[in-house]
Each structure stands twice: as structure tokens, then as C-alpha cells.
């Protein structure tokens, strides 16, 4: 059992790294949102794994919160992405730089 737990943690770390790298290297907003989801789910996996290792229900409970927040975030984020795409088709995240100082 212990070995399998370690494997889960390694997997979630890998997923997190892939998501983070994708977020940094890709410029398509849609893909970036997907990468963020990947990172969030990597974290969820970690929570569940630790919950199992420590024999605590808390880890699984937190996952629900994260899922709710992620859903909300996707609603807002996708809304923005769609609005931008309508106005300027093919826009990348670097084109949206109105908040530059």
C-alpha cells in the first residue's frame, strides 16, 4: 500500500509540473485554462492521497471545495475567453495586456 501512495504523489507532482509548464509556455487562453485545471486536479489528487495515508476524511472534504471553486473559476474564465475571442479572433493571452503599468 505504502508504495502505491508514493506513486500517487509522484503522479500528482508530474501532473502539476506539466500543468504549470503548459500554463507558462502556451499562449492560447483556452489551453491555459485547461492547464490550470490540470494543476488543480493534481492538487486534488494529493489531497485524496494524503487523506488516505493519514486515515482522515478531511483530505476528501477539501477536494469538494476545490472542485466548487474550480467550477466557478472556469465559468468566469471561459466567459472572458469567449468574449475576447468574439471581439478579437485568434487573440493570445499576451494580447490582453490592458493592465500594464
Amino acid at each position: 500500500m505504502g508504495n502505491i501512495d508514493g506513486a500517487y504523489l509522484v503522479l500528482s507532482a508530474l501532473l502539476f509540473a506539466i500543468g504549470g509548464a503548459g500554463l507558462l509556455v502556451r499562449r492560447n487562453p483556452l489551453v491555459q485554462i485547461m492547464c490550470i485545471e490540470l494543476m488543480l486536479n493534481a492538487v486534488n489528487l494529493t489531497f485524496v492521497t494524503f487523506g488516505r495515508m493519514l486515515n482522515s476524511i478531511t483530505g476528501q472534504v477539501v477536494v469538494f471545495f476545490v472542485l466548487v471553486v474550480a467550477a466557478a473559476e472556469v465559468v468566469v474564465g471561459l466567459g472572458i475567453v469567449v468574449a475576447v475571442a468574439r471581439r478579437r479572433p485568434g487573440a493570445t493571452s499576451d494580447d490582453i495586456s490592458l493592465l500594464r503599468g
Partner: protein
Amino acid sequence: MVELVWLLPALPLVGVALLVLFGRRMGEPASGWLATAMCTASFVVALVVFVGLVDQPEHTFEQVLWEWIPVGDFRVDVGFLLDPLSMAMALFITGVAALIHLYSIGYMHGDPRFPTFFLYLNLFVASMLVLVLGDNLLLTFVGWEGVGACSYFLISFWFERDENASAGKKAFITNRVGDWGFMVGTFATYFALGTISYTEFLPLAPGLAATTATFIAGMLFIGAIGKSAQIPLFIWLPDAMAGPTPVSALIHAATMVTAGVYLMCRISPVLGASYDWLPEVIAWVGVLTALVAAFAAMGQMDIKKALAYSTISQLGYMFLAVGVGAYWAAIFHMITHAFFKACLFLGSGSVIHGMHEEQDMRRMGGLRRFMPITAGTFIVATLAIAGVPPLSGFWSKDEILAYALQANPALYAVGLFTALLTAYYMSRVAIRTFYGEPRWPAFAAAGAGGGEPGAVEPEAAGLRVPAQAAAGAAGGLPTDADIAADPEPPHNEHLSADFVPHESPWTMTVPLVVLAGLSVVGGLLNLPISGMHFLEDWLEPVFALGDPAELGYSGATIVALLGVSTAVALAGVALAAYVWLWERFDGRRLEPAPFVRAWYVDRLITDFVGGPGEKGFEGIEAFDRVGIDGAVNDVGRLTRGASARIRVLQSGFLRTYALLIGVGSILLIAYVLTQVLVY
């Protein structure tokens, strides 16, 4: 009955409000009568309050109207403090002011801004009463600035002429120099004692450290110097004569200029706790002012300027009294001075009125035949100020001199010599105005017979008068050469050879007669006979904490001093008669240029402010610009510069932010891990 005290300043203020709203519609003379009625009502209230105050315990009553400035520990109320000192002041202020209001109805007859004049007069009376009755330093300061503002309005009342406007400005600015001291004194009082209410801080004053007390009293004395025209800030008062004559009588002789003396008397406990050198300085400033101004008064040709210098001189006596600890004697002289100097000024106003705006004594003479009431009252008041017994000035001045002798014989000697000069120069004014032969026909003949074609044009003749007066007023300062080259008075087109002066209407003569009567009997307030010290006994509790001087002289000494004063006064009058009435001596030799120009103090100040002073002020201005403004601007510049550099970080590129967040998280986790691993 004492609860009515708030009505004292409120009634003139109601008058102000009514005159602002309806003054123009009421016109002349109704607006004048309204103002006079308000002032008279205020006087009646003062009498009623006085009767009530006699029954009060310790003759003191404090009325708080409302809380004015409550800020943490700092609390200032609008309230009135009624004690023997403020009561005495309020009585003579409202009384003299009512008479002068009445007089002004006649004097200002025909002026296009008649209602405005009375508006200012009422406003002045209200401010003066706030000054005197205010129960804390700040409220007194409100009145102090109020009377200053009214003085400015009224000096420049005929602002159509430039020199009147600049005389007003000069008075206001010179006063501001002194006000700085008043404000610093108020701040220092709060820092030292935590309160500025008279009833709270004056009893604490004897416990002050001598240095603190000296600082507070010294600063307030600077304020008093400005307001009461002492050396070196007396230069504004002679120019203030540009205002209408009732203003000179009310503000620049009887009431406002005595505010400084009042302030010094009010803070007598602080003065008592000071180092001994401060009262000594006050006494010397006072007596030297008296001497310098008396010399200056000897050389004046303008009847009002002579009276102005005489006022400065008498104020000097009051400061001498304060300096030697004879506070009540200062108040005594203030009251008698208000009577006879108001009478003298109103008399001069009557003369000017009767002579059609002529103010130069070289053109007068023989007027007692044309204006007998004015002449009679003027001469009575002259004898009073000269110190001829048994008139009021004799008693009050002699009290001051007796205290001065006890404190320091040198002060007494200077004061006595000044008394001689006073008797001389006031008699000179009276003689040159009312005795001898009329002199204006000769001048009119000389002016017409000169054959100068330009003199026929009224514009040319009229223009010369303002030009000449402008040079004299407001620091224009003609040189000695000017004076020597122009011994003749400026031309006055009103006075022809067959001109006949007229006596003034009853509104003007009644106040003259009343004031002359008061000048005669004013001494009854306090006679140096046991059981007759009414004023001294009445005022005594106010000054109990101020370390007042006690006169230690026996009856015989007092009688001897009275004899000396009498002899000096009579000698002065006789000298004036010898020189000016019988003309046994060329009077011109007693009018050298330094006297005419008041020892060049005005010029010295002008030169200083325009020369080395200006450099200093420029230095201060540069410090303000470079040091203070520079510090503020540099802080701003620093912020802008730093943010210009930091702003670069906010690129607007989402991925840069993500990278920074990632790097930051890694650094944070790395730091936490190192901490965990170390322990």
C-alpha cells in the same frame, strides 16, 4: 441682572445686522440714530449689569454661552467674564462710544456712505466689547482682530484718496506684527498650563516657572506694543488720522489703542510671576514712548497729528503704570484719558468741520469767537490733559508719577519732564487754534494775490493738497529739505479771505459738553485722600495675584508730589502762552525737523525694511522655497522616480505573472523547508 451681560456686544451686533440689511434704505440720518440707539442701549445694559455685579460674590460673574472648540483636552468656550476690570472697561467704552455715535450724526452729515460708517462703528463697539469681556485669550483675540479690522475699514473710509487707503493698510500691517506676539503668547499659555481661560489659568500663573511666565508675558506685551502704538510700532497711529475724526476719537484715542494696556492688566498674575526685568522693560518702553511722542507732538502743524502723538504719549504713561505695578492707575488714566482725549478729538473735528476740512493750525487762530462751545470744551480738555488741578488728568497722571518715583527716580524724572512737554504742546495746539487773530484771510490773500495763472484753475489747486498729504502719510516721508522749502501750509481752496467759520450743530456740541464735564470731574473716581480710593478698591481683587505695587508714601510726600506736578503743568502752559500767545519767542525754533518727523522712526523702519531687512526676508523666503518646499517636492519626486522603476514589473503579460508567482512559491517553499530542516 448680571445675566444680561451677553446683551452688551449683542445689541451693537443687532445694529450691524439691521444696517447691513436696511442701512441704505434708512439713509441719513435714520441709520445714524439706529446705531446711536443700539450703542446707548448697550451703555444702559452696562449700567444695569454693573448694579447687579456689585451684589455678586467677589464681584465676579462668568457666563458661558456655548462650547466653541472642543478638541480633546483643548476646550474653548464662548463666554463672558465680568469682573471689576472688564466692568470698568465696558462702562467707559459704551459710554464714550454712545457720545461719539451721536457726534458722528452731525459730523458725517452729507457723506454718501453715511449708513456704512455707522455699520462699522457698531461693529467696532461689538468687537471691542468682545475683546474686553471675553473669558479666554482666544475670544479676546477675536475681538482684538475685530477692532483691528474695523480700524482698517474706518481709516480707509474715504478710500477714494490713495493716502487714506495706504494709511489703513499701514495700520493693519503694523498691528499684524504685534499680533504675532499675541498668538505665540496664547500658544505658550496653552502649552504651559493646558488652558487659556482666564478664570482657569490666571490663578495658576503664580506657580509658573519665571522663564515661562516671562516668555508668555513678553510675547503678549509684543502684541500690546502693536495695538497700543508703543516704540517701535507707534508709526501707524499718526497716519491713522486719515480716517474721519470721530473714528480717531473713538478708536485711535479712547478705546482700541488702550486694548494693549487692558491685556497687560488682565494677565497681571503672569507679569507678577515673571523675572523682574520684564516689568522694568515695560516701564521704560512706556516712559520713552511718552517722551518721544511728546517731542513729536511739539512739531506738528496738523491739529489731528498733534493729538495723535499726544495719544501715543499718554499710552506711554499707561504702560509706565503697568511696568511699575500700578495696574489700577493705568486703568484710571485710561478712563480719564478716554474722556479728555475723546473731547479733544471731537473738538478738533468740530474745528475741521467749521473750517471746511482745514486741518492745518497755521491757518487757524482766533476761532474762539466763532465757535465758543467748541473752544470752551477744547480748552477744558487741554487743561485736563496738561495736568492742571483739579481736572481729571492731574489726578490720574500724578498717581502714575508717584508710583514711578517709588519704583525708580529716573522713571519719575522722565515722566515729569514729559508732563511739562505735554502741558506745553497741548496749550500750543489750543492757543494756535483758538487764540490770536484769524490767520486764514492772510493766506487766502497771499494765494489769490500771487498772480499765478495756474492757481485759478480749481483742479490744479485741488491736486496739490493730496500730493502733499500723500507724501506725509503712509511712509512717503518728505525730507528735511522739503519741510524747510515749504514752510507754508498747503493751499486750501475752501478758505477765502471773507470766510466765516461756523459753530457745529447740537449733535456735535452735546457730546463735547458732556465729555468736557467728565474731564473735569473724572478725577473723583479716585482721589488720593483716604476713603476716596473708589477705583483702586474696586479693581484691587483683580490684581491681587499680580504682585501690585503699594504706594508707601505718607500724606506729606503725596502733597509735595501734587505740588510739583501742579507747578510743572502750570509751567508748561505758561511756556506755551509765552511763545505762542504773547509771541515773545520764535516758536519755529521749538519745531525742529526731528520733532516734526518723530525722530525719524518711520524713516528708520522704512530704510530697514527696504534695505537690510529685505535681505533677511529674502533669506527667509529662500529657506521656505528651498528648504521647506524643497523637502516636500523631493519626497514627491522620490516617490515618482521609484514607482517609474517598479512599474516596469507590471508588464500586462499573463505568463510573466504566472512565472513570478511560480518562482515566488518555490522560493517560499524552499525557505520553509530550510527552516524545517534546520530544526
